[in-house]
């Protein structure tokens, strides 16, 4: 919604906003544009047809999407809990939730491999079942989720905090169970924040290299593939792959954002 009274095209306020904003846009776009202008279009086109490239991009997108959706199932209830209830050590838990964001990625990978393999309880349980997660899409999903989960939890929590408690109360009085209130009122009203959380978690998962490469070098997700191309063949081959990956991602994001606007 526009604010009349702020709509005059060249109000100093709007001008200032636009100026400052363009700094950010430039800051984000310049490096990417720099990359693109250094890459002949035919290289990009050729790379966009390489099945290895497309396959790893597809792998990235699908694993990150699945990880996001799968981990959202417990993460969104956690966010709601953090938004609505008070309990002992809540501050600590809020802090813990932020930790995976701050953990250097290879440390995250090492910490995770300690859990999903070897002498940990989970690792043992898995190997008894004859399952070895290392080098599987599951391991990739776990690594992606670990580093990106906090973005979803934080966004969703902020979303829930903004849902007026009164609306939830009203729904309760209309006969809805707390569970129904949650998914018919709280969830849809926090939708925008949750979607932002999803997008951030999904995107963050796509970019992950450090933690993923430790738990699974193969199958190669896009970030690993680009790194691999860089070391093996050099920038000339890594750049087009990166550009293809980023273009597809951009497309996905614009689409996701449009989705959120519809609501």
């Amino acid at each position, binding site marked *: 919604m526009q604010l009349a009274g702020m709509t005059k095209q060249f109000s100093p306020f709007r001008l200032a906003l636009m100026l400052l904003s363009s700094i950010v846009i430039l800051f984000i776009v310049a490096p990417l544009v720099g990359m693109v202008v250094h890459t002949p279009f035919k290289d990009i086109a050729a790379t966009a047809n390489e099945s290895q490239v497309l396959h790893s991009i597809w792998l990235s997108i699908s694993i990150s999407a699945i990880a996001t959706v799968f981990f959202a199932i417990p993460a969104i209830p956690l966010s709601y809990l953090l938004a609505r209830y008070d309990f002992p050590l809540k501050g600590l838990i809020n802090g813990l939730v932020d930790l995976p964001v701050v953990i250097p990625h290879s440390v995250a990978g090492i910490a995770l491999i300690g859990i999903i393999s070897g002498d940990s309880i989970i690792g043992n349980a898995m190997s008894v079942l004859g399952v070895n997660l290392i080098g599987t899409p599951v391991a990739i999903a776990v690594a992606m989720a670990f580093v990106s989960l906090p973005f979803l939890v934080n966004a969703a929590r902020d979303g829930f905090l903004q849902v007026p408690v009164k609306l939830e109360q*009203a729904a309760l*009085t*209309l*006969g*809805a*169970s*707390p569970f129904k209130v949650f998914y*018919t009122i709280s969830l849809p*009203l926090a939708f925008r924040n949750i979607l932002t959380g999803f997008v951030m978690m999904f995107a963050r998962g796509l970019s992950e290299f450090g933690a993923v490469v430790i738990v699974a070098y193969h199958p190669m997700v896009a970030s690993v593939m680009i790194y691999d191309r860089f070391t093996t063949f050099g920038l000339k081959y890594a750049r087009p792959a990166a550009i293809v990956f980023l273009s597809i991602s951009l497309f996905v994001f614009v689409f996701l954002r449009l989705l959120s606007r519809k609501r």
Partner: protein
Amino acid sequence: MLIADQISKSFPTFKLADISFRVNQGDYFVLLGPSGSGKSILLKVLVGLVSPDKGRVFLDGKNITHEPVGQRQLGILFQDLAIFPHMNVFDNIAYPLKVKGLESKSVKKRVHELAERFSISNIIKRDTRNLSGGELQRVAMARTLALNPRVLLLDEPLSALDTSLHLEISALLRELNRNGTTMIHVTHSFDEAITLANRVGVIRNGSLVQVGETLKVFQNPNNDFVAHFTGARNFFKVEQTSDSQHGLVIGNITNNHKIAFFANSNYKSGYILFSEAAVVLAHTISEQSALNIFKGKVVDVFAQPYGYEVVLDCGFRIHAHITWESKEKLNIEPGVELFASIKASAIRFIPGA
């Protein structure tokens, strides 16, 4: 059938203290109280959204104090309506029906029935964001009534409605009540209480001051607050100084102003009130049957639906009601000096401290 039993609830700056009352099957119970007296909180306690520090709520003899909100079969209309912003009008009204698991055909039927009843069929597909205040109120009411709750709790349901809607919705509430819905209606409007309630409770500052049948309460207010709250403009504390035969009594309004009225002489002090229409204004005193004649200066004059209201300062303030014609005739303006006379028989006495 609904009993509030010694309900107390403390907030840092406010306290609901020891509220007890009963609402019988079929009652139209109005809780009347000024702004900030705790009416909304009390409703929330009844409905289970605020858990009381002390006290119990019974519905049909069953203690529902700890019943989950959704299972109490109480419908509530919130003061701020709490319309769901992410649903359109239809979905708002359909919400309780869907939640209850009704199949979509019956939901549709019921919603349209309700929309018809509340004259909102024309906006049934609209987004709720740009609805006007009155439209929102009717949507909320339809939604609350969708499930035919055992008891309907209304928090200021009429305050946002314009005159014609006010009439229409009041009639609807009366009808609902007549058809068997027990109502608890919270308001700060004396008029609403008197038009709708068969029983009222008057609440002040977190305490229930008086409960009873509407007319009994307003005709025999046990308390100056209740009396004052009826909106009477001419309301004074009197010390009774002397009495004569036939119950005619002389009281002191101020040290210098005596007033005569009829009362049981057992009481030594109390309150008197009289309607604005009982005050006759004149420029000169003629011999009249009125005992009570006061001289004063006009401090305010303003129009009323069927005439003017004049505020006269006679050492105490008398509100008088005059016709449009008399205003011209008497040339009443702020600053003008006038006499006000009130018949002793037009004065009602309320015994009290």
